């Protein structure tokens, strides 16, 4: 298979185009701007639409409009911009529309910084907008996974008629690695039963809507959506388990942080400490089965994140607080080093 050396942000864009994304609406923000620039260059050649919107809010609502007509649509941004998009994401979820949203995270809160961060974990998995809803959230840890997860995100968004997010970070967006592109079927799902693309006098009019003024109707629509969420929780979780079969200490990390942690796990093993790594590839749904499998022999868990500790809560819930779950993190754009993580492993390892 053909392999290309690509920057993470550009790989996200190329994968989207190959996945049949027909339009990209975005707004410039560091550190994801290469994605929009790549789209601007490539999209029209691919027969699609690139449009730089007047705001993040407009961009996500353009996505809503395009997705309403059954077209594969995407927007991307970085943390402060994703906050602005949250209104549109909520409407997309409430209207049962498929769409892909990319967050190449940077430090927050507020304007924060422009260096890598994972502090939008809560936002992505718990509250990207008002109301009862979820997004499928993928956490790539390599440029190849950026490609694979974008393809998967478009597929699952169509399959379940809901928004899907790629939660990357500035490190992954900026790094270069060789990638290959899979074969893609962009037309796997028939949208003719709901898309608002002109009825041609051949069917009833379609309404794309998230408004239900009667409480029981709104409740029913949400309950129906949550039935789909149950299927997703059952079937769509994904995680990497590394050296977990006999581990005493199970490290948990996602995205770029997992690469650092993997080095530390290897270093720990060299010292005779039985460390393992659990790396969720889906953050929602959280891989509950997989982490319990990985933690079978573990006496202690350690979550390492580029934040003040967000995923650590989900880990405690997933294992029902059956073992201590420690936390180590750097935030504000600081990336933890393998040496720092190894120190933490030794600290905890000593108490085992």
């Amino acid at each position, binding site marked *: 298979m053909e392999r290309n050396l690509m920057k993470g942000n550009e790989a996200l864009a190329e994968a989207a185009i190959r996945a049949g994304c027909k339009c990209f609406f975005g707004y410039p923000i560091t550190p994801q701007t290469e994605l929009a620039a790549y789209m601007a260059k490539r999209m029209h050649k691919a027969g699609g639409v690139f449009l730089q919107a*007047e705001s993040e809010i407009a961009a996500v609502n353009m996505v809503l409009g395009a997705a*309403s007509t059954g077209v594969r649509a995407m927007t991307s941004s970085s943390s402060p911009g994703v906050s602005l998009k949250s209104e549109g994401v909520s409407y997309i979820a409430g209207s049962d529309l498929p769409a892909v949203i990319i967050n190449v995270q940077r430090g927050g809160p507020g304007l924060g910084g422009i260096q890598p961060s994972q502090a939008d974990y809560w936002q992505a998995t718990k509250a990207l907008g008002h109301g009862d809803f979820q997004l499928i959230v993928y956490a790539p840890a390599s440029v190849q996974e950026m490609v694979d997860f974008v393809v998967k995100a478009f597929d699952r968004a169509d399959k379940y008629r809901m928004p899907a997010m790629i939660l990357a970070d500035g490190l992954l967006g900026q790094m270069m690695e060789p990638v290959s592109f899979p074969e893609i079927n962009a037309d796997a799902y028939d949208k003719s039963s709901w898309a*608002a693309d*002109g009825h041609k*006098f051949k069917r009833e009019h379609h*309404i794309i809507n998230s*408004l239900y003024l009667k409480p029981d109707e709104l409740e029913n629509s949400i309950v129906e959506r949550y039935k789909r969420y149950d299927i997703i929780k059952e079937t769509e979780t994904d995680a990497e388990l590394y050296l977990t079969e006999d581990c005493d200490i199970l490290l948990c990390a996602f995205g770029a942080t997992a690469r650092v942690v993997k080095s530390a796990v290897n270093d720990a093993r060299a010292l005779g400490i039985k460390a393992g790594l659990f790396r969720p590839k889906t953050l929602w749904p959280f891989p509950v089965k997989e982490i319990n499998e990985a933690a079978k022999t573990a006496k202690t868990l350690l979550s390492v994140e580029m934040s003040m500790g967000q995923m650590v809560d989900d880990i405690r819930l997933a294992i029902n607080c059956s073992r201590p779950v420690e936390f180590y993190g750097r935030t504000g754009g600081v990336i933890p080093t393998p040496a720092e993580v190894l120190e933490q492993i030794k600290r905890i390892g000593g108490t085992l």
Partner: protein
Amino acid sequence: MAVVFERPKSLIDIPTHYCPGCTHGIVHRILCEVIDEMGIEGDTIGVCPVGCSVMAYDYFNCDMIEAAHGRAPAVATGVKRTNPDKFVFTYQGDGDLAAIGTAETVHVAARGENIVVIFINNTIYGMTGGQMAPTTLPGQVTQTTPFGRDPELAGYPVRVSEMVSTLSGCALAQRVAVDSVPHIREAKKAIRKAFENQKAGKGLSLVEVLSTCPTNWGLTPIEAIKRLQDEMIPYYPLGVYKDVDEGVFPKHSDSEGGEK
């Protein structure tokens, strides 16, 4: 005897939720008459706002999308850019279009997005019970300007047609009213022109319709019509503010405006 007047086919035959005397119903009807006369219902996608006309998707028989407050022009952009062969319109009130959605309004015109914007100006937020709108007249009493809108405190009204007419991508900016039969006929002509512009790919066509809100103005429907005529039209003069065909305010050329 032949039927000389009946409900247009693209206006679904159900009662509306609008208050007695609310002129939304008139605008809905003339919009649907235009859609019927052009035979484009099957190729039309409408975008609803948030406000009194939030449920307009239940009344128009074409495909409809409900947008977030103020975002209808952005939603319509997404629809039109991916479906350039379809007719796309937004239907928005003054709070939606000229307050929370001002950026979307300005940029849809600046880009010359090839869609139709129907803008209902009744100088008040109707759905939420009568608060100050960006178009509320100086001195007008609303829930949030209980002593009358004081420009020193609350600023001045936005004249949308005039503002949008200055943007190069705007093909038509026209202010009409639905206070009388001749004005309703004029309004319908303007909406027809807006859709013909879209058919010809001319760019953004905005039709501002001066309308009434008897309930929140605290007037009878007939008194409300009189207020529209006596107070609104003098502040918001009717007329064509831009028409690329007529050259009222010709498009800026590349050399003048630096835009294409």
